[in-house]
């Protein structure tokens, strides 16, 4: 069986679902002949034609609004925002229409659409190509926000997102698009949405993360293990609706919680998890919750960006602080 990267897993999921469901269409800028600027839609137009892999005019608002309209007519559009930094003109259609269509029509009209966007920093990209802005979407009711952190989860969660009857924002951690390969059978098996994945069992500290930062979380867990500290690593995967029970169960076991994300700290999604830990797990805690995040600044241009992104070392330090506290 072939080993594939995360970006290839995205392509594999799109191809699988387009082959098995005629209502699935892909649209966006450069998704056709060019196969997307990251090649996520490579070869799809050749296979499925220009009316199912649709190059749109260069207008994000158009892509988003047309996606809403197609979905209301019973299609399953998968729209691509070329970069997360260009998603802002799409937000009105996502927040005011896609996410509330079912609610405002009492279920008469629905929007079974997916918005994919390469997400996050660390690829030496130009300005506006490196943001982590998932928290701007997690406060929108009626919307799922999903971030895979491996090729297998990219495949399984994207299939689930396309099949889901409600709108999904699917952020793809572009820093790990091609970082490693793993076996991902093209069997059409979706992974569940709305659940966290426990990637590593541990007893001393819980590290909670999502997207590209899961890599640093796992590296930190390795480093901690070398020092005899057992870290549990949770990939949140679906930020909203949140599976907090999995996090609570882990924190009840370890008594310590380190939240890692690359978005700015204040009102980042880590704040929600920290608040939930405070509300529901306070008496299980042996140490204050730690957050390892980007600072409340714009992500710098690429000479400094790796200093902005949380490193495994910072995660290790935070974990050790929680252990020192008790």
């Amino acid at each position: 069986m072939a080993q594939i990267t995360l970006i290839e897993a995205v392509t594999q999921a799109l191809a699988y679902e387009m082959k098995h469901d005629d209502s699935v269409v892909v649209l966006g800028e450069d998704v056709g002949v060019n196969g997307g600027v990251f090649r996520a839609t490579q070869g799809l137009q050749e296979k499925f034609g220009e009316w199912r892999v649709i190059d749109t005019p260069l207008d994000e608002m158009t892509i988003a609004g047309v996606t809403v309209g197609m979905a209301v007519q019973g299609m399953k559009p998968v729209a691509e925002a070329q970069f997360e930094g260009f998603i802002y003109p799409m937000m009105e259609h996502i927040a005011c229409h896609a996410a509330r269509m079912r609610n405002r029509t009492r279920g008469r009209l629905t929007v079974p659409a997916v918005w994919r966007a390469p997400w996050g920093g660390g690829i030496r990209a130009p300005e506006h190509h490196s943001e982590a802005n998932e928290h701007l979407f997690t406060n929108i009711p009626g919307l799922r926000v999903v971030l895979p952190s491996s090729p297998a989860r990219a495949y399984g969660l994207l299939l689930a997102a396309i099949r889901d009857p409600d709108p999904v924002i699917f952020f793809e951690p572009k820093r790990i698009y091609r970082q490693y390969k793993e076996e991902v059978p093209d069997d059409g098996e979706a992974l569940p949405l709305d659940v966290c994945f426990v990637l590593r069992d541990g007893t001393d500290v819980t590290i909670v993360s999502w997207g590209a930062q899961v890599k640093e979380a796992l590296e930190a867990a390795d480093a901690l293990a070398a020092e005899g500290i057992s870290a549990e690593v949770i990939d949140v995967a679906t930020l909203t609706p949140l599976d907090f029970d999995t996090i609570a169960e882990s924190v009840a076991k370890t008594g310590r919680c380190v939240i890692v994300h690359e978005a700015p700290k204040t009102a980042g999604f880590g704040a929600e998890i920290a608040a939930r830990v405070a509300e529901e797990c306070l008496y299980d805690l042996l140490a204050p919750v730690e957050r390892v995040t980007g600072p409340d600044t714009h992500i710098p241009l690429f000479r400094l960006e790796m200093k902005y992104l949380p490193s495994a070392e910072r995660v290790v330090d935070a974990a050790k602080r929680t252990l020192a506290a008790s």
Partner: protein
Amino acid sequence: MTIAAKFEIEYLQYLDAEGKQVRKDLPEFAKDLDHMVELYKLMLSTRVFDAKSIALQRTGKLGTYASCLGHEAAHVGIGSAMKPEDVLAPSYREYGAQLYRGVQPREVYMYWGGDERGNDYQKEPARHDFAWSVPIATQCLHAAGSALAFKIRGEKRVAVATIGDGGSSKGDFYGAINMAGARELPLVIAIVNNQWAISVPRKIQSGAQTLAQKGIAAGLYSIQVDGNDIIAVRKAMEDALERARSGQGGSVLELVTYRLGDHTTADDARRYRGKDEVDEAWAKEPMKRLRNWLVAKKVWDDAKEEAWKAECDDWMDNEVNAYLETKTQPVTAMFDYTFAELPADLAKQRDAVLANENKAH
């Protein structure tokens, strides 16, 4: 001088302000006088409905309401030209078109009366139409997406969006006509130019001589129409729909009319426009000219007018009663349509709200 391209905008009118026929070549539908009487009756019932809505708001039985006074020819012209299988994506004022397609007055009252069930239109073809869009012009792109879906599936259906003159300033409108032009989509956008976007007049919206010509930039068939003349509106709509259905692409129609009422019941138009202008607009309003024309054809008279008004009053009273008798939704309704299935995390919040509600009673 070399001309790279040249364009013109036709203006379409059949009846002048007094109901005098200004062109001889009446379209087929207008030769059927029974049908023209039906259209007049729907325009009149729309006006009765509108007056009833405002009365409900003024007596505290409705929230903010956006009146359609003066738009009856434009709205009924749009609705009556469409086929059932077409899709309407309206703004929040096009009741004449919506009533034609099966939206019930009680549903409009429910929405403006603070109940989402008003958007759950029960009757076809309205049931597959969009609910009105409150954010301006966004529905243009939803219609474009619908048109794209129809084209991909090879369905002979047309998506129609309605916006105001202010709406034609928005990127959503430009994006929709641009997409429709590039992909030859079966999309018709009717700009109901009623001269006012709340307090901002048409001339401040755009330096374009006509709003119709914006469609030309996108490669669409574009025409300006007397929006108070239902024969002209209906004819222009029929032509645009036929073009779209037969694969000739999209259209932009500018229906020139006037907002005789306030923007909504929360607005006071006296703050920004003079009485003279409004009086002048009343002289051109859409009901009178069609009535005069029908009376001259001897198919309508005062007695019929009074009888139909009385029938409309009864209809609206019945609708108002149905609305007023509708019980408020349970508090849990705010959760139950957020997702297809209630996520576990949200279920906890629902339980908490329900517990609080039960405690309060």
